[in-house]
């Protein structure tokens, strides 16, 4: 769930945001329907953002009995401390890790690998996967596969990879890049960006070798039901909790 000023929003390629409901209500619904994990990414840019996010984490933790990850503007040990104390299970960092990779080591030694997720947004430029910041708007010097390896070596517990070329297209996940990431890394890789049909999920587990798949709009706008999706995954030989 992308969160802006306390509401769930959804856009295509990170723009044209539409309201998709109250995050706590949605969290309860998704956990009842069988989601295995929730991810909240705060994309608001207000001054009171930190406090709003901590409050949201607290309200989600009160209601939800499955793990959840929180990200958006986290850049220090103190930020993480507040979110974990309010009930988050994991935090996700992105731009702050690219700008200061040592932050990954610092967070891992303080809180442990298990709660540090590094999110990587990337898109292809002339055939090369390049890491981008600010919701995919700003290219960096970093190449996806090298950065992912560095992130692993610095101790991150998981990588959340979003293909900006696929996000919002509903045309399937970036399975080629995912399979390479999964093959080169020894930490779990979460596929994000591109979910449109149940077969896209099957493909990303089979072809993309993803350890987990993340989607937002297909669930927010009830195009895919989580129960049906998991049933189909199981029928296709992918082990899932039902």
């Amino acid at each position, binding site marked *: 769930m992308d969160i802006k000023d306390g509401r769930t929003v959804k856009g295509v390629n990170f723009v044209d945001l539409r309201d998709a409901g109250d995050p706590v209500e949605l969290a309860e619904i998704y*956990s009842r329907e069988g989601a*295995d*994990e929730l991810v909240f990414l705060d994309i608001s840019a207000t001054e009171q953002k930190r406090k709003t996010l901590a409050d949201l984490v*607290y309200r989600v*933790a*009160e*209601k939800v*009995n*499955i*793990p959840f990850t929180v990200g958006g503007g986290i850049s220090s040990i103190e930020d993480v401390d507040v979110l*974990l*104390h*309010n*009930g*988050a*299970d994991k935090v996700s960092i992105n731009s702050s890790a690219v700008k200061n990779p040592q932050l990954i080591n610092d967070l891992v030694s303080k*809180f*442990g*690998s*298990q*709660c540090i997720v590094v999110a990587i947004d990337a898109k292809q430029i002339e055939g090369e996967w390049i890491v981008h910041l600010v919701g995919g708007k700003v290219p960096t010097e970093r190449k996806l596969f090298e950065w992912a390896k560095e992130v692993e070596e610095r101790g991150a*517990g*998981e990588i959340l990879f979003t293909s900006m070329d696929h996000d919002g297209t509903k045309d399937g996940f970036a399975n080629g890049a995912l399979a390479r990431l999964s093959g080169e890394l*020894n*930490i*779990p890789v979460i596929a994000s960006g591109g979910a449109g049909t149940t077969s896209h999920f099957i493909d990303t587990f089979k072809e993309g070798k993803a*350890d*987990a798949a993340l989607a937002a709009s297909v669930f927010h706008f009830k195009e895919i039901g989580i129960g049906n999706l998991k049933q189909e995954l199981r029928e296709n030989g992918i082990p899932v*909790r039902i």
Partner: protein
Amino acid sequence: MKIVIINYGAGNIQSIKFAIERLGYKAVLSHDADEIKTADKVIFPGVGEASSAMKKLRESGLDSLIPQLTQPVLGICLGMQLMCNSSEEGHTKGLGIFDVDVVKFSPGVKVPQIGWNQIAKLKSDLFENVEENSHIYLVHSFYAPICGETIAETEYGINYSAALKKDNFYGTQFHPEKSSDVGERILGNFLGSV
């Protein structure tokens, strides 16, 4: 009923408190010896690194208090691991309640194991009304091998202890507070019938 969650500065205890409240009970967070001794049920949580967590326990004297408790005690995740003889993580001694040594997963599986897995060979009242092969949520890099005190097994490259029990002491490697309805049932069993 008085439920105390031992608060020694290790990990996400808010989630456990909320899970207990969802089951209709109240829990107190405390590191005070008298408060812990007078509880009906004690929860010993833990997320983080074993040797530094043991150091915190020693500094507060909880390392000698916990093994002497006579009421039901439930160690969760690192809490369970600290109740064992020792841990390879930071090469630390444990509380010596469970007679088993905690070791690291061998190469060949992704470490930490983060996610849902299944529990089997369930023994003990902790798993009343819990089906074999139910899914539970785990996050860990070290594990307790199968031993005489194993009351549930799971498989990740090898079979290992998903839960342990000795006398009034229980431990789960998984997080019941994050394991959806199954986890709530297990936590409910601990708070209710055991």
